């Protein structure tokens, strides 16, 4: 790892905040640092959980990148604090939930099916891999489609509504778009959200729409033709709605 000045490092961090590719590069560069911090926090855990702890430490380092500003002092010191805090939380939660799950336990979403039956029903590895390959293909295509709208999946995650109420508003916009054919056509043709039509048709404030614009683009694009797996996953969304356009 090339030693950098604090100033250089801060510049890299600031760039990584808005550039996921650059964030990947930065995290890879500082992997030795992250592993070093992890080793300070290793508890007496089964070996299988060490990789989980590393995943947590990597997420924590990324959180430090997003949450850092110069008022917090040196970045690496800040990052070490975030990693430490995250690992302590994770360890605490893991200790609580570490128990053997009975295979005879009913599945929470279907009381007639036990875990052992669900496992048995699970497709063979080959089927699972095939299904996953199809999902990966569709999702990759979806991500490329979103790029033509100037949107990335990381941005959609940042832009996604977190509160139930806002989510319902966004879903109501999708509902409106399904009943108003021109909305999807305008979206696909212009690569932009037809905000004016949505405001006039739904009475949702322009401010709300602007605030969640990238998410709304992704949601509407998912309901254009071709994204059955993604739409199929949205069971709770579809339960209140009529399916694709």
């Amino acid at each position, binding site marked *: 790892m090339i030693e950098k000045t604090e100033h250089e490092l801060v510049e890299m961090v600031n760039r990584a905040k808005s550039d996921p590719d650059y964030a990947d590069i930065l995290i890879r560069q500082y992997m030795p640092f992250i592993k070093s911090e992890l080793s300070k926090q290793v508890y007496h855990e089964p070996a299988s959980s060490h990789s989980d702890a590393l995943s947590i430490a990597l997420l924590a380092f990324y959180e430090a990148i997003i949450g850092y500003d110069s008022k917090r002092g040196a970045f690496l010191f800040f990052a070490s604090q975030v990693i430490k805090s995250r690992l302590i939380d994770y360890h605490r939660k893991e200790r609580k939930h570490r128990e053997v799950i009975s295979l005879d336990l009913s599945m929470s979403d279907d009381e007639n099916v036990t875990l052992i039956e669900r496992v048995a029903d699970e497709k063979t590895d080959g089927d699972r891999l095939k*299904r996953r390959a199809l999902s990966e293909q569709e999702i990759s295509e979806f991500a490329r489609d979103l790029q033509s709208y100037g949107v990335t999946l990381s941005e959609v995650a940042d832009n996604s509504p977190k509160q139930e109420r806002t989510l319902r508003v966004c879903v109501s916009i999708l509902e409106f778009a399904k009943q108003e054919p021109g909305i999807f056509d305008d979206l696909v043709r212009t690569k932009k959200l037809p905000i004016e039509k949505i405001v006039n048709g739904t009475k949702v404030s322009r401010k709300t729409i602007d605030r969640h614009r990238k998410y709304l683009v992704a949601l509407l694009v998912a309901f254009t033709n071709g994204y059955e797996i993604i739409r199929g996953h949205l069971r709770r969304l579809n339960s209140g709605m009529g399916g694709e356009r």
Partner: protein
Amino acid sequence: MSYLIMEVRVGYVVVLDEAGRVFKAANFGYQIGDVVKDVVLMNEPKRHGFFSSWSFSFKQAGVLVTSFALIALFYLGYFQPNYSVYGTLRLQINPDVVMSLSKTQRVLKVEGLNEDGLALIEGYSFADKKSDEVASELIERAIDQGYLSERKTLTIEVDSNDVKWTSENELSVSASLDEKYGNRLIIEVSSHDNDDDRVEIPSKPAQPTTPPSNNHDDNDNNNVLNHDDDDDHDDDIDDDENNDDDNDDND
């Protein structure tokens, strides 16, 4: 709730839940297309970053501005009109006293401008009183102390940079004093700028009355009140001066 892995990064993955929400979460070796039950979601950055420091500063600034505005309002709306000197009211009997007044005619200070004036206000409390009340009480004190006698002239002079306030107070104080003492005293209003512009408020015809505080039966005409030290009398039309010798004799 299950989550569909949408994007895989070194530090995180992007997941889609069944309700349509999209999150960043820890990457436990996932691949795109995986569906998982449990995820460790990324913590939302607490608002200590750029925007929060701005908003915090705005909040701080807002609180400060509001505080200053309230203090200014309090000062301008309450303190200044009631506790800052806005003008003066001078009473010239023989004792010469001047009151410093707030805009709301609250008396803030009373000063004696001559020896008699100092004696008049000795031990006098003007706290929380308005100008007409203090003027009236000082006149009573002057009467009690023998400075004022029947048909003596009392001159009031109001002064301020505010012309309107000055004239309003002149009228107010003179009307108030006239109502109480107009039958006994001559009340004059003197303008600060032009002493010649004297407005004489005619008193009611004098009627024989019992002297308010002293027993002086000798004076048939004027109900003269005692006044021992007359050396500084420099006004007026006072028939009673002729009777001073008599009064002195009676003491």
